[in-house]
């Protein structure tokens, strides 16, 4: 069974495709890295799987569409780090699938938040404001929210960018734990060595799918070279894509 299936997916900005005719599937309980050069459509594809963007063409099938099925971690740069929220409040938003906009946070939930914060190495920082956290601590707090969300499908967008080695190692342990628990994890990453070491599966993306399979087989020099030749500049006078038009 597949957790996520992509069927000829194209997603574009102002008619220029960022993800172009990509098909394939993420198996249940798989741990997949999405790699590729800047502008290759990695984040775009992840956003589409999360339901934030809609494909112009093709379909994305998510096997389980129940509330709270997907946990999505955006790129750190998309969030305002000095937003006036406490760490406790941020992590507790992970209960959204249970509380919605009106439900209360129970004492049990608060205990679980405390435990999740301890798990990510932020014990005792519940009352701190987000603006007082370092980049690494902020990312740890977001991982605590993922723990609280407790979702079977986890999407991570460049979770280790600008994060130090210790924190990365700690957060990678959490990713491995999710994998062992049978959750499906899809993670956008840049570090090929990291992918080979921790991520069994890899989708090498350069607007189109260059390779998708075992990391050790996908990340070989020949395919990486193909991906590197991908130009992220869009052609101002590109012709209309006729692929798939009958």
């Amino acid at each position, binding site marked *: 069974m597949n957790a996520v299936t992509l069927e000829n997916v194209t997603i574009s900005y102002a008619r220029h495709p960022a993800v172009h005719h990509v098909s394939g599937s993420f198996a249940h309980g798989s741990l997949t890295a999405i790699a590729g050069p800047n502008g290759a459509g990695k984040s775009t594809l992840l956003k589409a799987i999360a*339901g*934030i963007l809609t494909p112009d063409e093709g379909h994305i099938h998510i096997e389980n569409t129940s509330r709270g099925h997907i946990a999505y971690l955006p790129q750190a740069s998309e969030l305002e780090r000095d937003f*006036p929220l406490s760490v406790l409040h941020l992590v507790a938003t992970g209960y959204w699938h249970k509380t919605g906009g009106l439900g209360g946070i129970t004492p049990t939930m608060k205990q679980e938040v405390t435990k999740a914060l301890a798990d990510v190495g932020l014990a005792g920082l519940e009352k701190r404001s987000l603006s007082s956290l370092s980049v690494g601590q902020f990312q740890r707090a977001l991982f605590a929210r993922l723990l609280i969300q407790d979702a079977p499908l986890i999407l991570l967008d460049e979770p280790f960018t600008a994060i130090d080695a210790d924190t990365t190692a700690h957060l990678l342990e959490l990713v491995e734990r999710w994998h062992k628990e049978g959750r499906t994890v899809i993670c956008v990453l840049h570090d090929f060595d990291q992918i080979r070491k921790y991520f069994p599966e890899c989708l090498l993306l350069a607007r189109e799918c260059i390779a998708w399979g075992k990391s050790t087989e996908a990340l070989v020099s020949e395919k990486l070279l193909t991906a590197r030749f991908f130009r992220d500049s869009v052609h101002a006078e590109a012709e209309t894509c006729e692929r798939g038009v009958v």
Partner: protein
Amino acid sequence: MTLYQLTLEPFIDYGFMRRSLIACAAIAIGGAPLGVFLVLRRMALVGDAISHAILPGAAIAFLFFGLSLSAMATGGLIAGLLIALIAGSLMRVTQLKEDASFTGTYLLSLAVGVLIIAARGNAVDLMHVLFGNVLAIDNTSLLLICSIATVSVLTLAAIYRTLIVECFDSGFLRAAGASGAWVHQLFLVLLVLNLVSAFQALGTLMALGLMVLPAIAVRFWTQSIDGAVALAIASSFVSAFIGLLLSYHFNLPSGPAIVLTAGTFYLASVLFGRHGSVLVHFMPRRHFAS
């Protein structure tokens, strides 16, 4: 002059002073929390744009019903909602950004409004609409203002958490299967409603005064949203109270007196606030040991 004469007597002796104070209290309670969210969403200028956009609606009502506050409020409400809808949609379907879209729409709207009033009324009427007159609020208007505040507070309470999460991380809500777009629309509707309230008291040019000035000022004192909302309401009400007294004792126009009082709090906060103020910037204290 005793303290009693200075602070309470005007409100006890004169009905128009009491009505003004109640109207301002309602605007503070309904509007100031919205101001906090406007600042948080970096929409303070968008709020300003919508407040000016109310004018043609009020002007058309003035054309048909004369200087009736409730008719002008209804006209303003319709115009405000229409402008928010048009500018919001233009922003989504064209390449216009939020600030440009709202500025373009409100300038057109304001110009049309001034033309309509100039065609029919006189300079006094125009002044009244542009700058409002809190002392002229009658019981019908007061009822409208208080109703708006009630609806606004209850609605904001219901969408409070969704609004905060949508503001911080809109992708999170959508991935969690909840759309945040409706919250933004509802927020704009609340904003227009409260601007219509404030417009009767402070006019279209300064309607945001009691809503946004306190909201900006409190960001210098508290780092929590709940705290900012509570402080903003309090500071907005106190500004109105002092402003009305200044206007009474020194025979000043009430709108500018109120906005200037709120402005004094704002300036004091910018200079001496606890977080990120001029004082903090230029007089750094010794750092902690850890």
